[in-house]
């Protein structure tokens, strides 16, 4: 068996990819399903148009959250499947990995969902997602020109995010 990557504490150095980026793409949704941000750095295959892609992603996460909460063996009280949950309540999943990519997810109690798709050997990205949430607060939320609930059009946020994504191992 081959072992990829380093220990949990220090993530392995980034594996060289064609574009030099480790992250493939990022989605940011708000509590109403509006896709606030979608950026891709390395996505060779496009199967759906943008709208459908966003809806699919949001729907996937919504269902996954519901399902993971329902299957929780440690929680005593479970709602029925499909019953809307408060964001952040119950158990929340944070990533899934396939043989070609890893999807990391973070949801704040205010319903802001950050999804990062990276190569499969990436370690735990919860800290990175928290950092991206902080970037969102600094560059987007505090920007008086930005209207909450609309897609993000802040160049500074995009640039900083791109830079940070390059550094994620």
């Amino acid at each position, binding site marked *: 068996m081959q072992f990829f990557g380093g220990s949990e504490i220090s993530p392995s150095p980034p594996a060289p990819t064609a574009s030099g980026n480790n992250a493939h793409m990022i989605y940011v949704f708000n509590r109403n399903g509006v896709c606030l941000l979608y950026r891709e750095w390395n996505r060779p295959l496009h199967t759906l148009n943008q709208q459908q892609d966003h809806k699919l992603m949001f729907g996937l996460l919504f269902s996954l959250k519901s399902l993971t909460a329902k299957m929780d063996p440690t929680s005593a009280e479970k709602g029925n499947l499909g019953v809307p949950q408060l964001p952040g309540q119950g158990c929340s999943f944070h990533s899934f990995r396939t043989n070609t990519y890893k999807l990391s997810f973070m949801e704040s109690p*205010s319903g802001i969902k950050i999804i990062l798709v990276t190569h499969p050997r990436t370690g735990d990205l919860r*800290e990175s997602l928290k950092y991206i949430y902080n970037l969102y607060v600094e560059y987007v939320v505090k920007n008086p020109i930005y209207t909450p609930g609309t897609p993000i059009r802040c160049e500074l946020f995009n640039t900083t995010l791109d830079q940070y994504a390059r550094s994620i191992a």
Partner: protein
Amino acid sequence: MAPLAPRSGDAIFASVERVNAELFTLTYGAIVRQLLTDLEEVEEVNKQLDQMGYNIGIRLVDEFLAKSNVSRCTDFKETAEVIAKVGFKMFLGVTASVSNWDADGTCCSIILEDNPLVDFVELPDTCQGLYYCNVLSGVIRGALEMVSMKTEVTWVRDMLRGDDAFELQVKLLKQVPEEYPYKDDE
């Protein structure tokens, strides 16, 4: 990596950038004065302050969540405690206290002994009926709405009207869990 533990209000207040308290007080005072000049009706000014507070609150909640690492509160009691101890401390540098819980835990009072917004302020006779700090009630209402709680926030005691402290009554109207937003029209 284990998730970070929630930080205390003092710790965050010490680490964020701060602004001169007098500048803050005088700026807020200038806003209220301008609103009074523009709108003339005290009720209108109250409503406008509440609306401004609401707009601040919907943004402030994300900053609060990002900096303080609190996870979802399990019930409204915890929410009120977090607002009073962490929230007020982090943004205004004052600690508030929570009291007067009603029987089913949906209504409480947040009491501020100290309020940086009202330093040097005295209300003239022409402004009786003005809730000078109404922006705070809007902020709380806006912030809680973004975490799925519809609330009603009103002033019970106001030092500018002769009471001994500032008391805000926060009443939880309902929890609004998120629903799947897309219609099934695929």
